[in-house]
């Protein structure tokens, strides 16, 4: 299987509406403290992380952040909390990690094998964060704490939603980059969550609705950085698996989708493109002359028809690029994964590109930026506003509010105007059940059964109080999971 495991990490925005200045460190810590779910608390094995190793064969001494964040971090060091307290890591019985990353509550799904498992776990994450917000607001009285699933504060601060894919190390990294770049530049046609206005440094200002929240923040082609000079392809080389056999493609360019359909299409199409790259079945790649600038160009044209320059001197449109990938990768999953899911991805990818080309208004029931376009057009008409009115940024933010009584996406859902994808029962199950046939199943069961004995925990293993360890580094495929469970039936007595 070309892409055996997939995962999503979402950093949420957090604010106290009753205070003039909200302290995200305090608020995020308090939020994590409110989590009622059974979990290993403050025991993440940070010594197992290797975030400074670059895919291009070198290591950096430190990761960069801007001066403002440097100052904040200096202030954080004066707080009466340890690093562990501020991070407040939790590992849940469903195998997920829920913690604070750079002052944002972050939900990292367990590793999943199937696309719809992943979407269910992403939605379960939303529900768990919401559960914590409810409890925190009960303590505070009223609903002063609000949390948003988005990627920007409209003032130049971005936080991420990363999609992750375990891929083979057999091919050179350059090959993955060459084939992925045009796809990633144009994936926002259906994966963009939409954003009012622009925030780019030294850019022409843009008024109105962009396709993507994140595109203004992409400044380089390749980089190990995630907080400055954000790249189209992140080069962090940390597979959380055998470094001989695997890479983890850690994509930081994506938006947080409120629409589960958009999440599924984003990850499903990317997985199918990775499969055909791995199988070396693609004709020569489309080479864009200026992909970094193209990211913004694509985001600011909702038709998908803007001309992008190729190194050959010719031009190509974002829609044509996506149609090229659909033609060559549309059926790749049928031979390389769950055939039913692959069929869904192929069909919906084709339908979405077709609708964008011929009847873009049809996207308004499932693609986040198009849902916003429909909603905001009605609002502007009713209120006599134009795209330049600043109130639209506030309305845009509210689309991402995870409070079901306030959030505009949830309002669309309650009105039956958006496509549902994952049955409620399946989301409920994902709250406390890890995805079957993955190492997350072992991790989750250990959290459930051996909570008091766990000293340290990580994606790749568990350390117990008595010195025993459980190494999950090589547990990638369902047969690996089965073999591990069968190899030590006393340890896994719950099986």
């Amino acid at each position, binding site marked *: 299987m070309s892409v055996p495991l997939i995962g999503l990490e979402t950093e949420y925005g957090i604010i106290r509406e009753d205070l003039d200045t909200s302290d995200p460190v305090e608020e995020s810590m308090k939020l994590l403290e409110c989590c009622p779910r059974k979990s290993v608390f403050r025991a993440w094995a940070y010594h197992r992380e290797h975030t400074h190793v670059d895919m291009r064969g070198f290591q950096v001494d430190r990761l960069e952040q801007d001066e403002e964040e440097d100052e904040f971090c200096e202030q954080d060091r004066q707080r009466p909390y340890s690093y562990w307290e501020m991070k407040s890591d939790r590992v849940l019985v469903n195998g997920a990690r829920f913690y604070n990353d750079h002052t944002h509550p972050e939900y990292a799904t367990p590793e999943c094998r199937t696309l719809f498992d992943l979407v269910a776990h992403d939605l379960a994450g939303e529900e768990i964060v919401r559960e914590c917000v409810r409890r925190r607001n009960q303590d505070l009285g009223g609903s002063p704490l609000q949390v948003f699933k988005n990627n920007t504060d409209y003032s130049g601060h971005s936080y991420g939603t990363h999609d992750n894919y375990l891929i083979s190390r057999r091919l050179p990294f350059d090959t993955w980059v060459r084939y992925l770049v045009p796809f990633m530049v144009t994936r926002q046609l259906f994966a963009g969550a939409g954003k009012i206005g622009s925030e780019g440094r030294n850019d022409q200002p843009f008024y109105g609705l962009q396709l993507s929240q994140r595109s203004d923040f992409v400044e380089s082609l390749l980089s190990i950085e995630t907080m400055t000079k954000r790249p189209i392809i992140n080069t962090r080389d940390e597979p959380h698996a055998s470094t001989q056999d695997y890479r983890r493609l850690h994509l930081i360019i994506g938006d947080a989708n409120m629409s589960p359909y958009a999440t599924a299409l984003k990850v499903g199409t990317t997985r199918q493109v990775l499969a055909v790259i791995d199988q070396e079945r693609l004709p020569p790649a489309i080479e864009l002359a200026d992909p970094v600038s193209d990211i913004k160009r694509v985001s600011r044209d909702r038709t998908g028809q803007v001309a992008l320059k190729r190194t050959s001197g010719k031009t190509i449109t974002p829609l044509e690029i996506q149609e090229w990938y659909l033609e060559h990768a549309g059926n790749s999953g049928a031979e390389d994964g769950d055939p039913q899911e692959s069929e869904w991805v192929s069909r919906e990818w084709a339908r979405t590109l077709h609708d964008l080309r011929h*009847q873009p208004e049809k996207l308004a029931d499932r693609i986040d930026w198009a849902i916003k376009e*429909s909603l905001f057009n009605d609002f502007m008409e009713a209120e006599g506003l134009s795209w330049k009115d600043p109130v639209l940024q*506030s309305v845009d933010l509210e689309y991402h509010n995870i409070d079901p009584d306030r959030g505009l996406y949830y309002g669309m859902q309650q009105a039956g105007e958006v496509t549902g994808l994952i049955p409620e029962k399946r989301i409920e199950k994902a709250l406390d059940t890890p995805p079957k046939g993955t190492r997350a199943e072992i991790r989750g069961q250990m959290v459930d059964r051996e909570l008091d004995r766990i000293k340290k925990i990580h994606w790749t293993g568990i350390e117990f109080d008595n010195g025993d360890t459980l190494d999950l580094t090589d547990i990638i495929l369902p047969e690996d999971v089965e073999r591990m469970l069968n190899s030590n039936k006393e340890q896994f007595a719950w099986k």
Partner: protein
Amino acid sequence: MEMNDPLRREEKKESTPDRKDDGPSRPDVSRPGRDDLLKRMKKVDPKQSEKYKQRTGQ
């Protein structure tokens, strides 16, 4: 099997790209749901995005 539920749901309502007569259509703005949404949007604090200051994340 539960895993297939989303697929079955989609199969029921989705169209193929070359058929223009079915699949989702533009939301009907005259529906009561859309009116409620417009009311919800009017309640949004116009200064909300200005007050919403976040720190840089990854």
